[in-house]
Structure formats: C-alpha cells, structure tokens
C-alpha cells in the first residue's frame, strides 16, 4: 500500500468514525439538570397572571397548549389534541383529545378543562384572549375527548392560539367556584402552586433565589422529558449572570438574558453556543414611536428626515453589538409567510434629510436649530439610553434639538399610552405568529385608546390601512392575504407612522452540552420535553 492510499483510507476511516460518533451524540440521553437564568424573577407561574417573559419562560414547561408547533412558521401539530378537523367555511373546529392524559395531581384531562381554559380563563384573563377567541360563539363538548369550537367569523390565525403561553390548558378543578364568580382567578392558589399536564412539575420555589421543576413521570409522551430537573436561578446582576454562564454553573441564558456586551464576549467562548434562532414566532421589532398629534411630527417630511438621519446599521452594530438588523417595515424579515420582500432598505443620508427639512420650510435659527423635540426611551437598560443619545446626536446634525427625558417603567407607560404627552420614544413590539395579532394592534385606528398599552399611541389613522387590516383579519393565509399584508407594509414603509428601526435579535446563550433547544419559532416558550444534556 502506498502512502497516499493509506492516508486516503485513514481519512475515510476518521470521517466514518466521526460521523458515527456524531450520530451517537445525537441520541438523546436521559437524566441531568438544566439550569437557566433570567431576570427579573417571575411573579406567578401562569401566563394568565401576566404574560411577562420570565413568567412565560417557566409556565410553558408546566402547562401544555392544546397543540404543538413545528418550525419557524409555527405549523400546528398534534399535542394534547391528537387530531383536528376544520369545516370548509372555517367556522367550526373539532379537536379530538388524547386519551389518558393526567394532570399533575393525577386527575384526568378532559374536554371540560379545554372549554374552561378558553371560555373562562383565556377569554377573560389573558391579555390576548379576546383577540384569539373574541369570535367564538360556542364551545361544545359532546364527550370527554371532543371539543368543538364554533366561530362567528373565520379567523386566519385561529390554530396559532393554542400555544402554551397564549392559551395554557389549566384544570377546571384548580379553581373554586367562588374564585370564578368573584373574578379572583389571578388570586387563586394555582397561580403559585401550578397543576398542569406538561413535562415538568413545580418542586420548589425559594423566592429571590431559585425555582426547581422536576420531571413529570406520568407525562403523556413515553420516555419524555429527558431532563430530570429544570432549575431557574435568579441572579439579578447582569455581570453575575454572565459569570455563572461562563463558569458553567448556569447552562442557558435565554432571550437576551445577559447584557449585550457580555453576549458578544461569551459568544466567542468554545464551550458556549450563541444563537438568535428560535424566536421567529415572536418577531421582536423596535421603532421610534412618534406622536403624530404634535407638529411638526405630523409632517411626513419631518418623519422622513428623522428616518434618514439615523444610521440603522450603525445602531445595530455599535449600540446593540450586532444583535439584530435594520427594519424595513412593521413585519420582521424572518417571518416566512407575511414579510414583503420588495421593501427597500431605509436610506441613511443626513444631507438629504437636511434638504428635506429645508424644502419643507423648517429654517435653522441663529443657533442652527430648526425645532426642538423631547425623547423618551424604554427603561430596559443601558443600551436604550445609549440609543436615545445616539438619536439625539444624529438629529442634532439636521437641526433638530432633542432633549432626553428618563422615566421608569410605570412612568413611561403612563406618559406614552395613557397621557400621550410624549413626542419621540423608543418602543418594542412582538409580531407574534400572525401579523393580525402582533402588528394590527399598533396601527389600526380603533386602537387609539387611552390606557391601552403597546397600542396605537401615535394616533395613526389611515382609513385605507384600517380597511386592509380588517380584511386581512378574516382571510385565510394564502396569496390574497399575503397581497393585503404586502400593501399594508408598503404604505407604512413610506408613510412612517413610526420610524421603524431594528428587527431585534433575541440572543440565547447555552452550554454546548445542552441539546435540542431550538425546535420552532417560540423555542424558549416551548415545553423543552425533548431537550437533553450530553
């Protein structure tokens, strides 16, 4: 055998060996504890109490949704409901429930629980309950394993409603009649001592320190979950969280749980994985909200000038350490079904911005200032402050003098959504799995409502957009609906009801030994029943 043949054979052997060990490595292993960290600590364990991120992260491991979802496009697949049929007019959905599913307290899961979870709980207590189920006319339960939901009007995103964070299946027997009658659902004991059907059960909650979930041995998927325990460690300081991840004391920091600078640093370490995949179903997007009631912000030329004065790429790369990309409209480009690919990138050109303002008649004063604006920012951390400072600096270059005002969350919410006394502010929304849920709320004129959070605070009122949004809300997904959403995006791209800035990237950092985390477009709100540790 000559040397080159030997080398070839040896290389082939090595490759085959590596492939075999790779395949071996991909066989899920049972056992082990996954520790994750997120700040702040959850205030309850049910998204009925609040859908805040920390609550959704933990409650989705305990409470199942009726369905499961696959891929970035969130295709529904069987879960607690084994199968379903939809009537040709899309007005009646029949779900067949899996038999033999037990609640954590040993009682059987039945159609009565599904009806209760939708009719009594989601509809009345979940912040998006009315969006999903406002059209429901009746929920029938002909037997313990069948649920028929009837709708007044077709809802294109109806099957997306059954995610564990959106419509958690909760036991009817977990609430007393008095709690229901007196509307004390949020105060019920089950909010702190959950009983679900999910892969994990609550074992211990030491406030301020940690939460331990343990494996549900009676989980309906045989052999799953793979993990024995799931631990949430509460570490309020960002640097301390990063240290815990770096040291391997914590396996996972989901959804940008670490300060961006730390994410950039840790992402380069060989034992850690940094990824923005698995949040497509949330579609986080950030923009500069503008109060259109105020002159000169009501002037399109002014909004165009502001938009042109901001270098979105620089914002992403410098302030946000590369997490995200420049936005082109209200829908994130990662949305495979609804994003309008024809939208161009926004141009960065202070020269053109200056000219726009000159032409529109906003003359500079002796001090070089055309007019003054106040700017608020989301009180989520340092990056938001720096972004506000960057915007101030760039707008200064085109003669707009910006004064930054700092408020905490309570003050910010009141100023922006109740008082409408802001002029410019950063704001952050989720597209969710369907734009009618996540996008419509911020731009439809019926949502110009004082006190409605993350709604149309700008006072944006375009009858054409309203009409399109209403139409899109009833059509099934397909070319017709896509066309409508394309049109809406085009109008908003040009009309700038807000200054669209960045498609934010939720960055998850995990230890390489953790496998199977990214399963769909809401991976961190999935139940982690197939996550395992090497």
């Amino acid at each position, binding site marked *: 055998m000559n040397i080159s043949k030997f080398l070839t054979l040896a290389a082939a052997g090595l490759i085959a060996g590596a492939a075999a060990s790779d395949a071996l490595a991909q066989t899920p292993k049972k056992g082990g504890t996954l520790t994750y960290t997120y700040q702040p600590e959850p205030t*309850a364990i049910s998204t009925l109490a*609040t859908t805040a991120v920390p609550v959704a992260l933990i409650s989705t491991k305990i409470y199942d949704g009726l369905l499961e979802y696959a891929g970035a496009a969130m295709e529904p697949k069987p879960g607690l409901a084994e199968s379903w049929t939809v009537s040709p007019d899309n007005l009646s959905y029949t779900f067949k429930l899996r038999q033999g599913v037990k609640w954590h307290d040993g009682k059987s899961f039945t159609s009565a629980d599904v009806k209760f979870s939708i009719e009594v709980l989601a509809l009345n207590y979940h912040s998006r309950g009315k969006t999903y189920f406002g059209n429901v006319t009746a929920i029938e339960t002909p037997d313990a394993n069948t649920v028929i939901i009837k709708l007044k009007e077709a809802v294109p995103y109806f099957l997306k409603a059954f995610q564990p964070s959106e419509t958690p299946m909760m036991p009817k027997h977990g609430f007393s009649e008095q709690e229901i009658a007196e509307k004390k659902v949020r105060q019920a004991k089950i909010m702190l001592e959950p009983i679900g059907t999910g892969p994990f059960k609550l074992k211990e909650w030491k406030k301020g320190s940690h939460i331990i979930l343990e494996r549900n041995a009676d989980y309906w998927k045989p052999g799953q979950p793979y993990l024995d325990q799931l631990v949430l*460690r509460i570490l309020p*300081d960002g640097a*301390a969280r990063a240290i815990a991840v770096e040291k391997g004391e914590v396996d996972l920091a989901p959804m940008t749980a670490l300060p961006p600078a730390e994410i950039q640093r840790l992402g380069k370490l060989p034992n850690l994985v940094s990824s923005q995949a698995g949040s497509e179903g949330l579609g986080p997007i950030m923009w500069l909200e503008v109060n259109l009631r105020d002159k000169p912000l009501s002037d399109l030329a002014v909004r165009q000038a502001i938009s042109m004065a901001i270098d979105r790429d620089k914002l992403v790369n410098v302030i946000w350490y590369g997490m995200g990309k420049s936005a082109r409209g209200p829908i994130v480009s990662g949305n495979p079904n609804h994003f309008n690919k024809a939208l161009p990138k926004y141009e960065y050109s202070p020269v053109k911005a200056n000219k726009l303002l000159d032409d529109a008649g906003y003359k500079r004063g002796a001090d070089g200032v055309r007019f003054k604006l106040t700017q608020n920012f989301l009180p989520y951390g340092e990056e938001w402050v720096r972004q506000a400072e960057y915007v101030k600096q760039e707008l200064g270059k085109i003669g707009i003098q910006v004064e930054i005002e700092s408020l*905490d969350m309570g003050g910010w919410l009141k100023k922006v*959504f109740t008082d409408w006394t802001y002029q410019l502010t950063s704001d952050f929304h989720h597209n969710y799995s369907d734009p009618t849920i996540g996008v419509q709320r911020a731009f439809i004129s019926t949502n110009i409502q004082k*006190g409605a959070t993350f709604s149309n605070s700008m006072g944006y009122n375009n009858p054409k957009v309203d009409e399109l949004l209403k139409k899109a809300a009833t059509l099934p997904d397909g070319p017709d609906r896509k066309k409508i959403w394309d049109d809406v995006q085009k109008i908003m791209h040009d009309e700038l009801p807000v200054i669209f800035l960045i498609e934010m990237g939720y960055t998850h950092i995990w230890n390489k030994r953790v496998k199977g985390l990214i399963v769909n477009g809401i991976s961190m709100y999935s139940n982690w029943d197939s996550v395992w540790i090497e």
Partner: protein
Amino acid sequence: MRQASLLFLVRRLLQIVPVVLAIVALNFFLLRMAPGDVADILAGQMGHATAEFTQQLRQEFGLDRPLYQQFFIYMGKLLTFDLGVSHLQQTPVIVLILDRLPATLILMLTSVVLAVALGVVLGVAAARREGTIADSLISVLALVVYATPAFWLGLMLIVLFSIKLDILPSGGMIQIGAGLKGAAYALDVAWHLILPAATLALFYVAIYTRLMRASMLEVYGLDFIVTARAKGLSETAIAWTHALRNALLPVVTLAGVQFGHLLGGSILVETVFGWPGLGRLVFDALLQRDLNLLLGILFVSSAVVVSANLVVDLIYGLLDPRIVHK
C-alpha cells in the same frame, strides 16, 4: 433612678406609635405621586392590553377607588397588623417579608458584627500609634476601601475567588437542588456567605476604623487620660479600659443607625451575589409599583429604625453613667 428609667422607656415606646403611623401615611401619599400604577405595569408586561383590561386590573386591586378611601382601608387593616397582599405576587406581604428576612439578617449581622469588631481594633491600633507608618497605612487603606464601590469590589472578589481560583461560589445562598439539611445546610450557607459578607464588611470596616480612630484621639486629649498616665497605668490598660469605653459612643450611634438599615439590606451586594434578601425585594417592588409590598416593607423597617434608636439611647446610659434619662 430605676423608676425614672422605666418612665422614660414607656414614654419613648408610646412616642413610637404616632411616628411610625406618620411615616406610613407619608409613604402612602409619596408613593402615589409617582406616575403609573401596578395595573399599568402588569398591562405593560403583557404587551398589548386594552384600556378595559387595565381598568379591570385596577378594580381587582382596589386601585379604582378614591385615594382617601384606599388610605383609610389600608390604615384600618394596618391597625390589625394586616399588611395586605402583594398585587403582583398575589402573596400576603408579611409572608414575602418573612421569607426574605433570614437571608438579610444573616448577611447584615455577619458583616456589621465583623465590621464593628475589626473597625474598633484597627481604629484603636491606629490611634495608639498616631503619626507612625502603621497609623498612616491603616488610615489610607480604610480610605481606599471606603472609596471603592461595593458592587465593583464584589465583582472583583468573584473574578478572583470564584473564576480564577475557583474556591468559592459566585452567587446564591445555597447549592440549589442539593437538598442539604442541618449542619451541612448551615455550612453550605456559610460557604456562600463568605464573599457577600466580606464585600459588605470591608465597606463598613473602613467607616468604623476611621470613626474609632478619631474618637479615640479626642478622648486621649482629655484630662482623665493624663491622670491615668500619671497614676502609672500601662498604655494598653489606658486604651482598652479607660479610653475605649468613652470613645465607643459614636460607634454605638452608627451601629444603631445601621441596625435600622438592616432590613433594607444592601441592594447592591444582594444584586451582585444573587443573595435573596429584602433589598432586592424593595427594589423590584418599587420598579413594579407593587405598593402594598413596598408600604409593608417600609412599615416594618421604620418600626425597626425607631426601635433601634431607642435601644441606642438605652445603651448610652450603660456606657456613660453621666447620661441620665428623664
């Protein structure tokens, strides 16, 4: 004399009640002045929420009533020692406070006791060697430590002892999920306590050292020390039996004030080390406008501050017989 002291005690105890109630009332209205309430926060956390939804939350929490009604309802409950329920956590406020209290007490007591003991010894040592290199060294070190932000010091200690040397845990109060009991549990807590207690104690040591030194030097200049020296007493005996007792008064005052702050915990140190104490609870409650929880913590801590002041007054009498309570 004894009767006079007792009368003083009773009178001071009676004074505590209106003081604490006034503080609660002030807190109640001051906290309401901040814009936004817990319903806003909750609705904000949930992403989009309609105005009706937010209003429904306000009704649930009783925040839709006129302010004066809310105030009287709160005060009425307070008089029966009912601190109410946390709006966000849906747990009785007293349960939340008692839950965090042990962690705070362990951390604060350890560091304050450590700091007072070390501070007194170092302060006396520096004062006795006034003007020497040892004195300068102690004073400069105290100044440096005092000027170092606690959170930075904490992070540096973590980097050194937890990451580089890998001999101490980086945070938390126990090894989570280990299920330790009894002595093993106590040891585990002590193990986790070392870094946060050291961080906090270092800051206080600096204060006590400087205070003790200054106080000792002042006492050294007094006539009775000259008399003691004339009597031929040793410098050690003068320092520890004669001067110290007199010089301790300001230290006791400061320790009393600090004991009052005990309940507040140390937000920074608790944050850096993930220590589940009251400090974080206060901070989160404030940001989330969880007023019942905040008022409850402020009520308990104001009661403790006022009581600590009383205790300090009583200790004064013990240390210095010339102080007579009337």
